[in-house]
C-alpha cells in the first residue's frame, strides 16, 4: 500500500495511506489532507490511485504544485517522489509488498471490464465524477492462488549486476587494421551480411560470440566455433570473414 508522508521542514506531521481512489489536498476542511496555510489553495491538488499506481494532479492552484522541484500539472508518482506545496512536503512512498512466494510474482490476472473504472482524463480542473467502486474489491474475482495483489516490481531496468568491465574489439588485419570498437550495445554484429556474420552478445556475466550466418564459422584462438555461444576472455583473437581482431577488456 502506497502512502504519503506529510512534513514541514524537518518535522514529520502525518502519514496518509492511499486507501481511497481520490485523495484531495487543500486548505478547505472538506479535503482529505487539509493544510491550513495561506500558500495552499482551497482545493490544491488531488492524488488518484488506481490499483498500484498513483497520479498527482494540480487542481489549478494559485501557487502551483511541485514534484522534486519541477512544476507539474499532472504527474505519475514513483517511489520517493517529493511533492512540494508551499513550505510543506509530501513524500510518496510505494512499498512493494514482500512476495510471499516466488509463485506470486507477476501472475497475470484478469481485470473484469467495468470492475475498476478509471477517472475521466482531461483538464486538471475537471474534478467531480462519482468515485467508482473501490477497484481493489472488484479485482480478486479471478485470483485463485494469489493471496493478495502481487504487484510487479518495476521491471524493465536490467538486474543490477556487478559492474562488468567494458569489452572492445581491435581490428588486427585488413584495411581497417588498428581500428577499435567498444562493445557497449547488447548485441554487436561483425562480418559481412550474406557471407559470414557473427554476433557478440553483452551479458551480465560476460561477452559471448555466436555464429549467425555463412558457411564458415568464426575462429577463436585458432579453433573454429560450433553453433554454440562461446564466452570471450581478455585478448582472445577472433578470425572472421578473413579479418583478424582482438577482444579485450577495458578496465
Amino acid at each position, binding site marked *: 500500500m502506497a502512502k504519503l508522508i506529510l512534513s514541514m521542514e524537518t518535522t514529520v506531521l502525518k502519514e496518509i495511506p492511499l486507501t481511497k481512489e481520490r485523495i484531495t489536498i487543500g486548505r478547505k476542511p472538506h479535503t482529505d489532507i487539509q493544510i491550513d496555510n495561506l500558500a495552499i489553495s482551497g482545493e490544491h491538488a488531488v492524488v488518484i490511485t488506481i490499483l498500484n499506481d498513483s497520479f498527482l494532479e494540480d487542481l489549478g492552484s494559485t501557487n502551483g504544485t511541485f514534484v522534486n522541484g519541477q512544476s507539474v500539472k499532472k504527474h505519475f508518482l514513483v517511489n520517493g517522489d517529493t511533492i512540494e506545496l508551499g513550505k510543506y512536503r509530501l513524500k510518496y512512498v510505494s512499498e512493494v509488498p514482500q512476495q510471499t512466494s516466488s509463485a506470486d510474482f507477476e501472475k497475470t490476472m484478469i481485470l473484469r471490464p467495468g470492475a475498476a473504472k478509471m477517472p475521466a*482524463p482531461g483538464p486538471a480542473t475537471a474534478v467531480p465524477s462519482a468515485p467508482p467502486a473501490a477497484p481493489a474489491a472488484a479485482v480478486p474475482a479471478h485470483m485463485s492462488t494469489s493471496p493478495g495483489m502481487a*504487484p*510487479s516490481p518495476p521491471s524493465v531496468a536490467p538486474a543490477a549486476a556487478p559492474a562488468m568491465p567494458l569489452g572492445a574489439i581491435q581490428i588486427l588485419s585488413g584495411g581497417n587494421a588498428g581500428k577499435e570498437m567498444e562493445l557497449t*550495445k547488447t548485441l554487436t554484429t561483425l562480418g559481412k551480411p550474406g557471407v559470414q556474420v557473427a554476433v557478440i552478445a553483452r551479458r551480465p556475466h560476460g561477452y559471448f560470440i555466436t555464429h549467425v550466418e555463412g558457411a564458415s564459422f568464426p575462429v577463436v584462438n585458432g579453433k573454429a566455433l560450433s553453433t554454440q555461444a562461446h564466452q570471450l576472455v581478455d585478448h582472445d583473437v577472433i578470425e572472421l570473414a578473413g579479418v583478424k581482431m582482438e577482444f579485450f577488456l577495458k578496465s
Partner: protein
Amino acid sequence: MDMTAVLEIVTQSNPGMVRSNNEDSVMANPLRGFAVLADGMGGYNAGEVASGMATALLGTELEKAFIEREPSSKDASGKSWAHVKVEAEMARVNAAIYQAAQSQPQYAGMGTTLVVGVFHDNKVTVGHIGDSRLYRMRGEDFQQITRDHSLLQEQIDAGIITPEQARHSQNKNLVTRAVGIDPEVAAEMHDHEVLPGDVYLFCSDGLNDMVEDDEIGMTLGALSANLELCAMQLIEMACDNGGRDNVSVILVKVKGEYPAARGWWVRFLAWFK
C-alpha cells in the same frame, strides 16, 4: 498452398528464471502458414491446461479448416476464410476452456491470452485476446501490431498515463480480456499487408515486460539471418534481466510473396466445394 517455401518459422518457450512451470504454450504450422501463442493463467497447473488447450485446439481446427478451403477465399460478407475461421475458432476455444473451468474444480478460474496469425495472400490475419503481442520488423521499422487488452493500455489510450510512465507502472499484469474467463469473448481481428523481408514476432509478456522494445527490435535487426539464434537471444535477454515470467517467442520470416492463386481454375474448383 504450401507455405514452407515462403515462410521460415521458429518457436521457443522457456519457463524463465523464477517460475518452476511454464504456463505459456506455442505452436506453428509451417505448411499451412499459421502460428498460435498462448499465455495461461490460473492456479496450480491450470494455466498450462488453458494455454495448452488453446494451442492444441486451434492447431487442429485451423489446419482442418485450411485443408477444406483456401484461407484467402472470400465468403459472402467479403471476409477471408482465414478471418472468419480464426474468429470462430477463438470463440470455440473460449467456450471449451470456460466449460472445463466450470466443470472441474481444479481448473476453476483458469484462462489464457491468445495471439493467432495466419499468413495468406500476401497478408497476415491476426486475432488476439489479452496482452500477448505481435510485432513486425520491416526494414528498420519495428512496430507493435497488436494492442494489449490490459489496464495499462486502456490508461494509455485514455491519456491518463504515457507509454514512458507505463514502463514503471505497478499494474503490468492486469489484462482486461482473456480466453476462458467468461462464456463469450470477442477476439480483436485485423488483416495486415505483408512484404517480403518482414519478420514477425509473437511473444508473451515475459519478453516485453523484461526487455525494452528498442532492444527487441535491435535483436531482430541484427539476427534475422538466423531465426533460431534470434529467438534464443531474445529469451536469454529476458532471463538476464530477471526472467520473472515465462518467456515465449515465435518468429516468422517472410522470404517471398505468396499471392493467392486467382486463375479461373481456382474459382472452378471452388465451385465444386
